[in-house]
C-alpha cells in the first residue's frame, strides 16, 4: 500500500507543479500585456504633463505712452519706422526708476518679449488715432519669466543655478503685486509660425505645411492606389509580371522610410530640379511611401466584394470595366477610404524622409502654396526638441499633443467608417 500512496503522492505533486507552471506562464503573459499598456500610459502621461502648460502664456500689462516724442518720430506718417523697442525700454524704466546700472537695465528689458514692440507697431499702424494716448497693454513676457510663473523654475535654487536672477524675481513680484501679470490662453501658439523666441513660436506654419503636403499625397496616392488595386485584383492575369508587382508592393511596404527620402533627394530634387523644402516634393515622397498601404487595403476591400455581384452584372451585359466601376468599386469604397485614411495618418506622422529633402529649414513665414518653403508638424517637433531653451520643451510636448490629436481624429474616422459600412455578405 505505501507504494501506491507514494506513487499517488508523487503524481499529485507533479500535477501541482505543472499547474503552478501553468499559472506562472499565464501571469507572465498578463505581465507582458500590462507592460505594453504601461508603456502607452507612461508615454502619454510624460508628454501631457510636460505639454499642457504650453497652452497658457504669461503676459505683463504695461502702460505705454504713445507720443511722437516717446516714439522718436516727427509726425504720424512715420509710424512704420518709429522706435518701438525704445518705447518698451522707456516704459520699463519709468516703472522701475531705481534701476540705473547698465547690466541691471539689460536684465530689466529682458523681462518682456521682443514681440512686444512688434505688437505695439501693429496696433498703431491699424489705428493711428491712438497716437498721443497712454494705453494699458498686455504684452507677452519673456520665456524665462513664463517658465517662472508656470513654476518650472525653482525659486529656491541658488541664484547662479537658475535662469532668473534675484533682482528679476523682485521686479516680477512687484509687477505681480500690482496685478500686472496674468496667464491667458496661448493664442500665439496656434496663430504664429516658427520663431527663435519660444514665447513667439507657434505651429501654424507647420500645420499649414503638413496640410499642403498631405493634400499632394492624397491627390496622388488615392487615385493611383485604387487604380493599381483594381488592376491587380480585377484584371491582372496570373503571371510572372503580376507576381513581381505583388512582391514589389509587399516589399515596398517594409522598406525603411528614410530610403524613400534618398529616392526623393536623388530623383525629384537632383534630377527633376524641383526646389528643396517645398510641400510638393514632400507630398511626392510621401505618396510613394503610402501607396503600398493604400494598395494593400484596397485589394482587401475589393476581395471582400462577393463574386456574385460581378457575375450578376456580367450576366445583364455589362462590360468588365462597367462591372468594376459601376458595381464593385462603390461597394469596396468604404474599405478603400479606411485604408487611405490610415495611410494618410502614417504620412502625417512621418519625419525621416522629409529631413532628406530639406524640409528642416527654419521657416518663419506661413507657407502659401505647394511651392513655398515649408516644414511639417513632425519636423517642427524634431526641430524644437533640439532647441536648448527650456521653454521649447513644453512647446514640443504641446505640438506632439496637437499631432496626436490629429492622428486620433483620423483613426477614429477610419474606425467609424469601417463600422458604418462594414458588410457581411
Amino acid at each position, binding site marked *: 500500500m505505501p507504494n501506491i500512496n507514494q506513487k499517488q503522492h508523487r503524481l499529485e505533486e507533479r500535477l501541482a507543479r505543472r*499547474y503552478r*507552471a*501553468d499559472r*506562472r*506562464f*499565464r501571469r507572465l*503573459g498578463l505581465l*507582458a*500585456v500590462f507592460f*505594453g499598456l504601461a*508603456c*502607452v500610459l507612461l*508615454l502619454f502621461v*510624460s*508628454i501631457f504633463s510636460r505639454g499642457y502648460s504650453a497652452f497658457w502664456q504669461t503676459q505683463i500689462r504695461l502702460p505705454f505712452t504713445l507720443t511722437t516724442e516717446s516714439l522718436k518720430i516727427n509726425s504720424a506718417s512715420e509710424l512704420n519706422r518709429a522706435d518701438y523697442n525704445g518705447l518698451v525700454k522707456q516704459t520699463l524704466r519709468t516703472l522701475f526708476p531705481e534701476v540705473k546700472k547698465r547690466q541691471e537695465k539689460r536684465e530689466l528689458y529682458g523681462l518682456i518679449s521682443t514681440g512686444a514692440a512688434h505688437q505695439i507697431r501693429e496696433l498703431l499702424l491699424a489705428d493711428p488715432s491712438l497716437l498721443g494716448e497712454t494705453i494699458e497693454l498686455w504684452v507677452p513676457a519673456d520665456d524665462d519669466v513664463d517658465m517662472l510663473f508656470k513654476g518650472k523654475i525653482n525659486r529656491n535654487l541658488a541664484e547662479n543655478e537658475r535662469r532668473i536672477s534675484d533682482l528679476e524675481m523682485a521686479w516680477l513680484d512687484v509687477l505681480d503685486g500690482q496685478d500686472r501679470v496674468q496667464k491667458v490662453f496661448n493664442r500665439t501658439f496656434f496663430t504664429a509660425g516658427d520663431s527663435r523666441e519660444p514665447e513667439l513660436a507657434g505651429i501654424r506654419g507647420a500645420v499649414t505645411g503638413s496640410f499642403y503636403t498631405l493634400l499632394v499625397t492624397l491627390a496622388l496616392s488615392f*487615385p*493611383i492606389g485604387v*487604380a*493599381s488595386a483594381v*488592376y*491587380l485584383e480585377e*484584371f*491582372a492575369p496570373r503571371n510572372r509580371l503580376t507576381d*513581381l*508587382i505583388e*512582391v*514589389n*508592393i509587399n*516589399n*515596398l511596404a*517594409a*522598406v*525603411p*522610410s*528614410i*530610403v524613400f527620402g*534618398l*529616392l526623393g*533627394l*536623388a530623383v525629384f530634387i*537632383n534630377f527633376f530640379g524641383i526646389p528643396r523644402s517645398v510641400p510638393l516634393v514632400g507630398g511626392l515622397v510621401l505618396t510613394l511611401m503610402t*501607396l503600398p498601404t493604400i494598395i494593400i487595403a484596397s485589394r482587401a476591400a475589393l476581395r471582400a466584394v462577393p463574386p456574385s455581384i460581378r457575375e450578376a452584372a456580367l450576366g445583364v451585359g455589362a462590360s468588365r*470595366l462597367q462591372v468594376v466601376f459601376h458595381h464593385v468599386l462603390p461597394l469596396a469604397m468604404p474599405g478603400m477610404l479606411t485604408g487611405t485614411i490610415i495611410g494618410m*495618418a502614417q504620412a*502625417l*506622422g*512621418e519625419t*525621416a524622409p522629409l*529631413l*532628406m529633402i*530639406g524640409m*528642416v529649414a527654419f521657416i518663419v513665414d506661413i507657407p502659401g*502654396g505647394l511651392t513655398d518653403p515649408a516644414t511639417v508638424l513632425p519636423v517642427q*517637433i*524634431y526641430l524644437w*526638441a*533640439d532647441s536648448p531653451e527650456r521653454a521649447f520643451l513644453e512647446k514640443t510636448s504641446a505640438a*506632439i499633443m496637437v*499631432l*496626436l490629436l490629429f492622428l486620433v481624429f483620423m483613426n477614429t474616422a477610419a474606425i467609424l467608417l469601417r463600422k458604418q459600412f462594414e458588410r457581411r455578405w
Partner: protein
Amino acid sequence: MSLQLFTLLALLTVAVFLLARGRARAIERRVGQRLHSRPAYHGLLAALWCLIPALLVILLLAGGESLVVERLVTAALPESMTQVSAFQYELLINDIKALASGNVVSRAVTPELESAAAHYSSLLDRAAIARLLASIGLALMGAFWIIGRVRPDFQARNQVESLVRALLILCSALAVLTTIGIVLSVLFEAIRFFQAVPIFDFLFGLKWSPQTAIRADQVGGSGSFGAIPVFAGTLLISAIALLVAVPVGLMSAIYLSEYAGRRFRAWAKPLLEILAGIPTVVYGFFAALTVAPSLRGLGESVGLQVSSESALAAGLVMGIMIIPFISSLSDDVINAVPQSLRDGSYGLGATRSETIRLVILPAALPGIVGSVLLAASRAIGETMIVVMAAGLAANLTANPLQTVSTVTVQIVTLLVGDQEFDSAKTLAAFALGLVLFLLTLVLNIIALVVVRRYREQYD
C-alpha cells in the same frame, strides 16, 4: 503659373466632355437610332484625349526644361567663367538663379552675371509660354480629332476601356518603378562613392569619421569611411530593441489569444496597437527627454557611468515601438493554428501552458520567425528615435551604456543641410543607404516567403 495652367486644362477637359457628349446626343436624335456607345463614352474619350497628351507634354517639359535653359544661359557666358570644376559650375548656376530671383549672390555681381540672369529669366518666361502653347494646343488637337469622329458606329466605349485599362496597368507598374528608382538612385551615387573610397575599405574599415576637407588647402580630417562601427552600432541598438520587443510581444500575443477573455482582449488589443500608430518622432522625444535622463540617474545611483545618448535608451524605446508589430503578427499566426491541434493536446492531458509551449508555438514558429524578421527590418531602418536619442560618434563597442551611432543617423547627418552634392561625404550617405536597402530587402523577402508558406500550410 502651373496652377493656372492646370485649372485651364481642367476647364478645357470638362468643356470637351460636354461638347463631345452633346454632339453624340445630337447625332443620336438625328439618326433616330441608338449609337454603338452611349454619348457619355464619346465625351469621356474626347476628354481623355484632351487631358493625357497635354499632361505628358507638361511632365516631359518640366523634366528637360531647366537643363536646356541652364545650357543656353552658360553658352552665352565667356569661357573663362564656365570652364571650371563641376562644383564651381554649380555655384555659378546657383548664383545666376539667385540673381534672377533677386536673392543674395555669393560673388561680386558683374555685368556678365547680370546679363546672364536677365537672359535666364527671359528664357524661363519663354519656356513657360512654350509649355502653355504646346500643352493647350495638343489638348485641343486630341479633343477635336475625337469630336470629329463621333458617328453611330464609332466604338467609343471600347476605346475608353482600353485606355482606362492601360492607365490602370501604368498605375500598378508604379510600384515596380519606385523600386527601380530606389535601386538606381542609390546605386549610382554609391558607385560614385566607391570610385573615391574602395568598397573593401568601406565594408570592413574600422574607423568612421566622414569629416572631409572641403577646400584643398584646408587642414582637417582626411575622412575615413570604414563603416564597421556604424553597422555594429545599428546591430547593437536593434538587438536591444528585439530583446525587449520579442518576449513582451510574443507573451502578450500568447496571453491575448489563448488566455484572455473576450472582453479583456477587446480593449487590450487596440490599446496595445496605439503604440504602432504613434509617430516615431514622438518616441524619439520620449527617449531623449524621459528615458535617457532616468537611465542616467539610475546608473549614477548604482555607480555606473551611463552616457546621456546611450544605446540602451534608444534600444529600449525602439523595442517599445515594435512590440505591436510582433504581437499582432504573432497573434495572427497563433490564431491560424487549427483548433484540432489544441484539442488533441488537451485530450492527452496537457495543461494550457504545455499545449502552448509544446504544440502551438512549434506549429506557429515559422510565422513567428517571419514577424521577428519584419520587426528586425523595422528596427534597422528606424530613423527618428536614433537620430534624437543616439549619438553621432561611431564608437565600436558592445557596451549598451555607451554612445553608438547607426546607419540611419549617419545618413541624416551627412545629408541634412549639405547643399553640395558631389563630395565623398554626401555620396557616403547613399552608400549607407544602399547597404540599408539591401539588408532590409533580404530580411523582408525572407520574412514574406516564410509567412506566406506558413499560411498556406493550414489553409
